[in-house]
């Protein structure tokens, strides 16, 4: 166990270097000259302007030179300057990361709650109609493209019914809460801005539900499977025999034991959430990493593409590592061997 974790930890920096290298190389071999995203059409024929831009953005240097400079700067936290926003990429990402995390955490929260409820119901009424409906609901969530379900819920709940606000993180007229954590919910609370907090929460509901729906299936499947596992075990049968009500058995004994594996599965859902967040942010004009990545990819904003790919890769690596470790920790065989040795 420990050697496994140590080995994974040692591999991390190497993988990270690989991620950086691949991301950097990819943008070097682009089909279009990045200058077209820096200089306007009118000045493309002006050699003085083209020369000045090449020099200013370091495009006149060779690939190895640029790579080494980039690595050197990266160590100091400098990821270059975005062609598009003209701000340091690291600064752009710092401002946007909390927006994405807030959305992803809210989605995970909603997805987990729904997933657990569905999983418990499905296990309780196994193979019955409720089981099948729960399964269908989860599968549809995993199959529906979020860029379409997002449009659909916007159209229904915001345009037609007017129950919830449309795109954005906060009411347009409200001033964003002063930056402390970058999480608008937390910052609004810290500032004691109740109206702002309410607005932020309401703005979160639609995108977080759409995004959360995609992981409902993963969670409910896990809960259902482990509940069935637990329910068939002896102490549950014993509890039942002692006269504990079915609901009490379900919640108190079975669900509690099913929660641990469920928590670890959430790590796996991170990949889904990253994918989903990129598309959800586009639909909901959410100023997070996802919409930043899309704008960068569309606009050939190389420093931003490299930056966002590195950050995404790093986040993915870390979450995979944590998940694997957590999984190893709760794996029954591992647990058994630990108990034996202690």
């Amino acid at each position, binding site marked *: 166990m420990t050697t496994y974790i140590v080995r994974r930890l040692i591999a991390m920096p190497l993988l990270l270097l690989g991620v950086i290298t691949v991301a950097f190389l990819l943008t070097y071999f682009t089909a*279009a000259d990045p200058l077209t995203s820096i200089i306007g059409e*009118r000045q*493309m*024929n002006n050699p003085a302007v083209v020369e000045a831009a090449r020099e200013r953005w370091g495009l006149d240097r060779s690939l190895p030179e640029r790579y080494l400079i980039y690595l050197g700067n990266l160590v100091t936290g400098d990821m270059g300057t975005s062609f598009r926003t*003209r701000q340091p990429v690291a600064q752009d990402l710092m401002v946007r990361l909390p927006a994405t995390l807030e959305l992803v955490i809210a989605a995970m929260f909603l997805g987990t709650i729904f997933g657990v409820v569905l999983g418990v119901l499905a296990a309780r009424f196994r193979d019955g109609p409720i089981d099948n409906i729960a399964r269908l609901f989860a599968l549809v969530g995993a199959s529906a493209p979020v860029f379409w379900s997002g449009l659909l819920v916007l159209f229904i709940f915001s345009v037609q019914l007017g129950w919830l606000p449309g*795109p954005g993180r906060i009411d347009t007229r409200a001033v964003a809460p002063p930056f402390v954590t970058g999480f608008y919910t937390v910052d609004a609370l810290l500032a004691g801005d109740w109206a702002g907090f309410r607005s932020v929460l309401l703005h979160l509901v639609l995108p977080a539900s759409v995004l959360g729906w995609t992981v409902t299936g993963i969670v409910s499947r896990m809960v259902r499977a482990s509940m069935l596992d637990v329910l068939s075990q002896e102490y549950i049968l014993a509890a039942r025999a002692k006269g504990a009500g079915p609901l009490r058995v379900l919640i108190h004994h079975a669900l509690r034991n099913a929660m641990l594996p469920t928590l670890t599965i959430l790590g796996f859902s991170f990949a889904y959430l990253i994918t989903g967040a990129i598309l959800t942010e586009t639909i909901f004009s959410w100023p997070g990493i996802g919409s930043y990545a899309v704008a960068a990819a569309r606009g050939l904003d190389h420093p931003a593409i490299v930056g966002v790919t590195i950050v995404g890769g790093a986040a993915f690596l870390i979450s995979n590592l944590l998940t694997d470790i957590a999984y190893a920790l709760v794996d029954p065989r591992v647990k058994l061997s630990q108990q034996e040795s202690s």
Partner: protein
Amino acid sequence: MRTGIRTILLAGAGAAAILSGPAAAQDQPLVIARNLEINSLDPHRAFCDTCQIYLSSTYQGLVKLAADDRSVEPLLATEWTSNEDQTQFTFKLDPDAVFSDGSPVEAKDVKWTFERLKNLQADPSFMMNGVASIETPDEKTVIVNMESPNSEFVGILAAPYVGIVNSDVASENGAMAGEDASSADQAETWFLANSAGSGPYVLDTYRPDDELRFRVNENYWGDAPPIGEIVIDHVADAVSQAQMLQSGGADIAMQVDPDTASTINSPDITIETVPSYNFIYVMFSPGAEGGDMLDLEVRQALAYAIDYQGAIDFTVGGEGELQASPIPNGFPGTEGLPMPEENLDKAREILASKGLEDGFTLDITVASLNVYGVDLTLLMQKIQQDLARVNVKINIQPVASAVWREQIANPGIPFSARFYAPDYYGSAQYVQFFGMLPDTYWERNASGQGKVDLVNKSEVDLFQQALAASGDEMNRLYHEIALEMIKDRIIVPVVSPNLILAYRSEIEGVRYSACCNLPLAEIGRK
């Protein structure tokens, strides 16, 4: 205990209700929904439509474009004179003018601004083309010497990109104006968080892809603007903008297209349609790979085969105007130009005389872009159907705009579509971009970087004269040039889309301006 919690909850809810209730309307920020798409907020690097709005509200030029969109009015300069041959311009600065930090606007700021604009070698630098030297005989006088005549120079000075910057403040924050400015200047990031002009507003905050927030300039030397705080909220598409307008989340929506406007049906919202100076054109490049059959006669024939009115109906639902030459309607020299004409018989006749009655095939690329409400791919598909009537088949390959810009230079694209919006009020910019003068953007690209000779000698001569002329004589010369540009049949304008101004009816003073898009300081609440 329970009551305690309930009281707290109720108190919280009450506070929320009070805060979210209708605050005093005049104190509320004005919200404008718009796709931000800002390339920079550094006045001498910025070059975008939103930049025009931003710069013209936070900075001021020596002169400004009047509300008639034609004449030039005093702004920081109270008066100006030029010598006989349009090579020397003298400006007297307003003694009252101050920057947002309270310091006076002086001749040294003007000199510094012009030099930085020129030396940064960025997108708007061409506005200082031909400036030889700048003299500052005293604190309130500026003399600009040109290398050659330029009758439009004063007009150019009304462009938002030539707004005068507080040179002391900017220099302290890394801005340079010297000849090495293009590599030495470090101020672009600073300009994203600060403005240093004398305009009615100052920059409050800018968050890319989120919002651009203005607050009123406390030290403004003119009449204070009606609205104290303005937010341009980033809303990418027309439908979302319209939705925000209807729900009251926005006061003005700037990019609502005719299709979307037709779905808005509310007494609270005013929708105005005004002609714009933007236009969409198609162009022929006989020097491009696969474009060798496109000689003047064939270009003429294909221009006859286009259904211009149909294209306007099709792309912008009829909300657009025909445009004769690459100089937009209303600019100097455009009065009375012959509008493009659809004439299938003539088209067929010309093609037959060339032995091309069975047509030919053109493989073309077009940028997949939606500009000013026109989808370029969609427009190309319409023209594809038009040209099929004279047996000319075009295969359309839509590509990213950046890819298109590479291809148009090399290997060239025989036939494609593009757009243009004015950078200032004046016709010279169009001749310098579209004219068949040596080394203009389109002379280079249409000729395949010189593979075929497209240079039009009379355009060259007429333009020389136009730059040295003024008043009616200048208008007459640009008219002549426009006629020559029509005859070239390289650039064929298809539609000048109308602009839709959609705003809540309690808002007043919303106006489209040729230089500055939307003059923010004129907007108020009824």
